[in-house]
């Protein structure tokens, strides 16, 4: 069974701090997505990474795909209250229809 474990599960930080969220698996994925979900809403896609070692930046968010395509990280620089939400990673293998979702990291940024 493919699993994606995220850490930490919960994170509460002050505005302006930096943080990193990790997404780890023993399985290889052909692509990995990161989503952010706000309370009462559906997950919104932030980024997709497909190449081992790939780094993508989205303003203050930096996403990295591990060299072996088994893990990923999300780094937020100078967090703001608007970054508050549930961050989900999802792994996808080409040739399959399914997505394997991580357990989620709930981030709260305090003003």
């Amino acid at each position, binding site marked *: 069974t493919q699993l994606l474990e995220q850490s930490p599960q919960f994170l509460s930080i002050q505005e302006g701090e930096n943080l990193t969220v990790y997404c780890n698996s023993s399985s290889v994925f052909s692509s990995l997505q990161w989503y952010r979900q706000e309370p009462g809403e*559906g997950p919104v896609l932030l980024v997709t990474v*497909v190449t081992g070692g790939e780094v993508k930046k989205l303003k203050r968010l930096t996403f990295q795909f591990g060299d072996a395509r088994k893990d990923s990280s999300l780094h937020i620089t100078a967090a703001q209250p608007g970054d508050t939400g549930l961050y*989900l990673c999802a792994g996808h293998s080409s040739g399959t229809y399914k997505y394997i979702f991580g357990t989620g990291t709930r981030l709260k940024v305090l003003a």
Partner: protein
Amino acid sequence: DVKVTQSSRYLVKRTGEKVFLECVQDMDHENMFWYRQDPGLGLRLIYFSYDVKMKEKGDIPEGYSVSREKKERFSLILESASTNQTSMYLCASSGRGLLDTEAFFGQGTRLTVV
């Protein structure tokens, strides 16, 4: 922009009722999914469909059925709602091409069964 629309944001139903949750996507995606999301359990796949009239069970199909009569529409049916089906229900869609790697989600339906 990809749009996945779920018919209701909030629903309250009584135990034993038959409940229909509707989802429509406008990107001509082949694949559509229904998940439920519960605190501490994450997203769990109920059913998915890879083509019109085609469906496969996900991880937790018991108590649910689905219908896909048209490519853009995927319905989730709770045959006889029970209180343990109170949850957030999320519909998603994705393409099938090599470059179609992402799943796109609707806004969710918060279902309460009383």
